[in-house]
């Protein structure tokens, strides 16, 4: 056992001693996750016009200001606003990725600005009246931009209120500001015009917005889809690569040297396999942590994610080892390994979600550890519990054992004599 670990640790050290391996095994899947999710997520770079749905239930002044602002020429380069009359339709458009966000201006927003009682000292309650923003979580950058536009409108308006406690309608009626000005110059204009007239007053009304949390059960996130997918894709590359070192060690003469040490050949072989396995474990666990903080991917419950990863890596590693067991040299192992990796990736939906695959193709996909892996991680992201994950874990473990046994058979044939 000590020698198995010594061999595995030696391979681990050789692999991760160089920055290149770290970059390829860990930084590359992170980068690819970002690139792929942007590529598929409707080119969400924030540089094209962002489609935003607006539902104006208010019908008063505040509603007008928002509509005018979002439709203003200054923002036309960035936004593609579209008005909806009911929330249902807007949210459907959001879910089918036609919109980056939906903004709802609730009914009665403007009314609360026109102090109905005329009593200056009584603060007006705006409880429960908040502008709502529903984000499309697959377009984080666009949502970010819309949020900041919304925020700046709110800040400006609130600054205007702080300057004097009076209703907007009043301002406009008195010809102090035009709706046009309100929406363009916003609070700054308001503040400037009001200050000389009213001096400072006290804020009685604040406008506020709530940002709706994305619903993880129904919301589809490209980042969350691509993260497990890329983790597994790059894992398969590094696993064929590490397993291949059995062959390159044979070519370089270090394997024969290992085989003439007073150890059972099985010890050497298991040591090499173990090396491949721990290289993969390190790669995936580091990726899980990095993607959690860098890409904000919530992987799910720690225990199930941990155990699932342990079997998933084993099963991907077993395929790399199988290739190494029957390839005649490291060049062949590299070619076959890459081919299998790419075919598996395509079958399993490592590049595009399998949702649109025909049924038979989906079924075939289940021969790959990739499909079980991606599905497993997505389920855990969506809240699958440990017992939900038992089946995929057992399947992955079973597949690993089968594949490793086959590899063992080929190794025996190759390394006898």
């Amino acid at each position: 056992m000590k020698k198995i670990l010594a061999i595995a640790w030696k391979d681990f050290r050789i692999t991760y001693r160089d920055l290149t391996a770290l970059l390829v095994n860990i930084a590359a899947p992170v980068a690819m996750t970002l690139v792929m999710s942007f590529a598929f997520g409707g080119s969400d770079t924030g540089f094209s016009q962002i489609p935003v749905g607006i539902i104006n239930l208010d019908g008063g002044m505040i509603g007008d200001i928002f509509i005018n602002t979002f439709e203003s020429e200054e923002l036309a380069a960035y936004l593609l606003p579209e008005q909806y009359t009911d929330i249902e339709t807007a949210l459907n458009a959001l879910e089918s990725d036609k919109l980056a966000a939906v903004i709802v201006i609730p009914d009665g927003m403007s009314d609360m600005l026109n102090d109905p009682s005329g009593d200056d000292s009584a603060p007006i309650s705006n409880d429960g009246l908040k502008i709502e923003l529903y984000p499309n979580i697959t377009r984080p950058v666009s949502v970010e931009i819309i949020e900041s536009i919304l925020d700046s409108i709110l800040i400006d308006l609130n600054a205007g209120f702080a300057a004097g406690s009076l209703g907007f309608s009043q301002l406009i009626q008195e010809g102090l500001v035009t709706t046009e000005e309100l929406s363009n110059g916003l609070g700054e204009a308001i503040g400037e015009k009001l200050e000389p007239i009213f001096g400072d007053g006290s804020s009685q009304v604040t406008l506020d917005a709530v940002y709706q949390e994305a619903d993880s059960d129904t919301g589809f996130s490209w980042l969350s889809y691509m993260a497990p997918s890329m983790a597994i894709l790059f894992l398969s590359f590094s696993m064929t690569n590490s397993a291949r070192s059995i062959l390159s060690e044979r070519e370089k003469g270090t394997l024969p040297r290992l085989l003439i040490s007073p150890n059972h050949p099985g010890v050497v072989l298991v040591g090499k396999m173990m090396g491949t396995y721990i290289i993969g474990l390190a790669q995936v666990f580091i990726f899980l942590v990095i993607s959690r903080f860098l890409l904000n991917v919530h992987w799910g419950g720690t225990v199930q994610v941990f155990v699932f990863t342990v079997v998933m890596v084993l099963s991907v590693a077993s395929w790399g080892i199988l290739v190494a067991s029957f390839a005649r040299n490291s060049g062949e192992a590299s070619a076959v390994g890459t081919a299998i990796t790419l075919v598996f990736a395509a079958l399993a939906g490592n590049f595009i979600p399998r949702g649109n695959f025909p049924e038979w193709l989906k079924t075939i996909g289940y021969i790959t550890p990739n499909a079980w892996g991606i599905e497993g991680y997505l389920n855990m992201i969506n809240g699958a519990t440990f017992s939900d994950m038992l089946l995929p874990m057992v399947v992955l473990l079973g597949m690993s054992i089968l594949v490793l046994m086959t590899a063992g058979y080929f190794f025996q044939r190759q390394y006898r004599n």
Partner: protein
Amino acid sequence: MKDNKPQPILEAENLVRMYGKFPAVDQISFAINKGEIFSLLGPNGAGKTTTISMLSTLLKPTDGTARIAGVDILTNSAGARKAIGVVPQDIALYNDLTGLENLQFWGSMYNLGGKDLHIRAEEILDRIGLSDKKNQRVRTYSGGMKRRLNIGAGLLHRPSILFMDEPTVGIDPQSRRMILDLVKELNRDGMSVLYTTHYMEEAQELSHRVGIIDHGKMIAIGTQDELTALVGEDEILRLHTLDSQVIEQSCLDELAALSGVHSVSRIDGQIILNVANAETSIADAIAVANTHQVKITSVDIEEPNLEAVFLHLTGRALRD
């Protein structure tokens, strides 16, 4: 009780290794005594590496067997492996580990560990003159340094017999000198050595006994004196020519036909003759060369050596 009979550390019996129908090693038998340096001398492709591979249990003999330190390599291969240290012909080290890390890893494969291993590794590094480079990756080593570390890795577990397969191929003269001295030093400390080479000079300098191997067969075996006696009183006449010199076969044939000339061969720009008396043959040989427009730049006369033995036994030079 004094036993003068030498104790064999290794006995090979009728070792055979077939590749298909081709016998790479054909019925080789020899014994190496404790404390002896035994050289297997033979040209490339003679079967030296194949023999060592069988003895180190990496290759299964097609036939025959061997005992190392009294342990049969077929029935107790793990036991035999403990007794041997192997220095492979091709450098077998991890380029991305440092010299020290390599030694520590290989030591751990031989059940060494902890402080013992560390001390032993440092000791070896000192012995092979790499202490100051121990923390550099092997990738950065010169060919000679790699060769030395390659030897070091075979010494860690203090084997009772060391197999060295052409350990000086392709290195600078200084490293070669260092390696040959190291072999002699190890031997002085009591280690038995099986050394293969195609350099006559190395076998000559190192060996207590030599086995000459060609085409998979052991064609002669004995001490250097015993072997050179095979050539009789022959001397060697070495004619140097320019490297660019064209030497026709008819010239060599004519040289071989001269009286007193026993065999002729050529390597690179040299014509080598086994002759009964160099002084009497020298004028005739140069005359023949002249008639064939072969310009002789210099001539050496040598006492019989292993190369002459090989030439005598096979009619070919060692480095054909």
